[in-house]
């Protein structure tokens, strides 16, 4: 998602249609009728699933007798049992740990490169910028499953041109699909798919800065690099914060890449990422109640992360503006 400021539109003073003398029909019914499709879909596919998940997460199956026959299994209130199970589940902890490591590798690298590319695109001394911009943005058009397929083959020593070269050089490079390398393998796929998009967000933000600011700095004798670091980066800080936030949320939900890579490697378990664990619990183990509790925990952690991050960053980066 790209992010740029648009303060005008959200201000409450935006002139709206005056309908002071309007009837109840035109004042209330018309707007709500026009909002109805959106509201109905929101309730059906966002609000209801969330409420239903909450409801499921407090239930469990009770087996009476031998568990045979139709009446032997019943659903009972479970209190916080499912949450306790989730939070004490070592598999869940391990999957969260893996995803954190993955995020620590991916996010700084992806945003750092995106920022570097955006600044270089913005520099007047760069040539072939149009070609590079299009090429770097192109992977955004490739869905995660297909990029995982492509990279998956590029990681396979039998097919990979990299291993062909390593082989000729006589180097013994361990496969990225081995258990030690697989986190890097997935991070690289996400980097490939995401760097261009984030670059465009930052570049768009850079373009909105009036260039006289730079001219003034240049007259004062600032070098291109100084201008980039001291002026450009702070100006586009809000865009960087938003890209970081979206990247963090995406990281916690990683699912498509590891799921697609699984057939190519033995080092990805069915619980590699938290969402893979939820999927396995819900569909392979038929334990929808603990899957529901785990989903709620993931959602809450995501929220907590986002809010915490925004607060910390806002204090640091924008505190002086108040």
């Amino acid at each position, binding site marked *: 998602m790209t992010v740029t400021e648009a303060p005008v539109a959200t201000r409450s003073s935006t002139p709206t249609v005056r309908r002071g003398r309007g009837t109840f029909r035109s004042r209330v019914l018309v707007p709500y009728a026009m909002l109805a499709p*959106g509201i109905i879909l*929101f309730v059906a596919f966002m609000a209801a699933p969330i409420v239903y998940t909450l409801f499921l997460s407090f239930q469990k199956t009770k087996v009476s007798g031998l568990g045979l026959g139709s009446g032997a299994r019943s659903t009972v209130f479970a209190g916080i049992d499912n949450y306790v199970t989730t939070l004490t589940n070592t598999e869940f902890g391990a999957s969260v740990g893996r995803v954190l490591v993955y995020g620590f590798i991916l996010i700084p690298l992806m945003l750092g490169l995106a920022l570097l590319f955006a600044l270089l695109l913005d520099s007047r001394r*760069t040539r072939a910028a149009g070609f590079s911009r*299009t090429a770097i943005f192109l992977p955004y058009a490739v869905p995660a499953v297909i990029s995982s*397929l492509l990279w998956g083959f590029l990681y396979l020593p039998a097919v990979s041109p990299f291993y062909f070269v390593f082989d000729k050089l006589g180097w013994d490079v361990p496969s990225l699909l081995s258990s030690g390398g697989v986190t890097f393998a997935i991070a690289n796929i996400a980097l490939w798919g995401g760097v261009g998009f984030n670059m465009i967000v930052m570049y768009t933000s850079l373009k909105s800065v009036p260039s006289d600011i730079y001219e003034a700095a240049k007259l004062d004798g600032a070098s291109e690099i100084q201008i980039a670091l001291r002026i450009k980066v702070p100006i586009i800080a809000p865009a960087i914060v938003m890209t970081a936030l979206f990247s963090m949320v995406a990281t916690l939900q990683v699912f498509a890449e590891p799921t697609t890579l699984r057939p190519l490697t033995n080092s990805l378990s069915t619980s590699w990422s938290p969402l893979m664990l939820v999927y396995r619990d819900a569909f392979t183990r038929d334990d929808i109640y603990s899957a529901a509790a785990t989903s709620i925990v993931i959602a809450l952690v995501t929220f907590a992360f986002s809010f915490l991050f925004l607060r910390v960053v806002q204090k640091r980066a924008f505190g002086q503006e108040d």
Partner: protein
Amino acid sequence: MTTTLTPTRPDRAQRKAERASARTFRQKASPVSTGILIIGAIYCLFPVFWVLMASSKDSSELFSTFTLMPSTHLWDNIVQLSQYRDGLFWRWVLNTAIYAGVGALASTWISAISGYVLAKFEFPGKKVVFSILLMGVLVPGVILAIPQYFLLAEVGLTNTMWSVLLPQIISPYGIYLARIYAAASVPTEVIEASRTEGAGELYIFNRIALPMMGPGLVTIFLFQFVAVWNNFMLPYIMLGDDKLFPVTVGLSGLLNQGASAPSMYTLVITGALLSIIPLIILFLVLQRYWKVDLAAGAVKA
């Protein structure tokens, strides 16, 4: 915060003018910065180049010849893929077009009308509605997929096209964007004037406001299109019948079979190539629209 996809590609005249002005200010080219960007571009293009080469090989060549060496079997592979289970692959392509195309169109219209009402009408409960919708932006769609499955299972809609289409039509983010576009590009006087002339509200929206929001709506459409096309988990969970699969789920299934039958790999690779080509073309063609988006000033970028 607004979102604008803006790989701007100025049209020819504009570009010429830019070049002319760039020449006046033209500074010494920096090989380092140009070089770094070119390396980035090569990194991004490399897998695409590889798949082009790999899909020209038959299944024995895939593992025996140097991987970047092209061969002559591209057409054979396409024929073979097309014959696979009576053209199942093309069925997947069609499904993807329906899910992403129809889904994104519906999503854009609903986002537009909701955003328009939220920007241009004054009604009780407006703030509450908007804040609740806004909270939806933060709810990760992937986490909703499993509960959506259970709810749709209750009404017997799982394993149908609806189960993939419907959940992806609502886009809080799209509504949020549409509200900004509507506020910025639809003048209140125009709405009031049409009203005095007796035009109905839906007519005003569809015929007057919608075209004014045009360039911004292309952005919403693109976002939603990419989001649906990228969403692997929802169809993966909802669909059991492989005739309903989108390309992504279909290819991932083929790759799974490849573990026991390596000849499948050729099909997977050819399928990957065929499914990214239209996307890349669409992407390059639509860059122009993203530029319109900027030039029209609908969004302050």
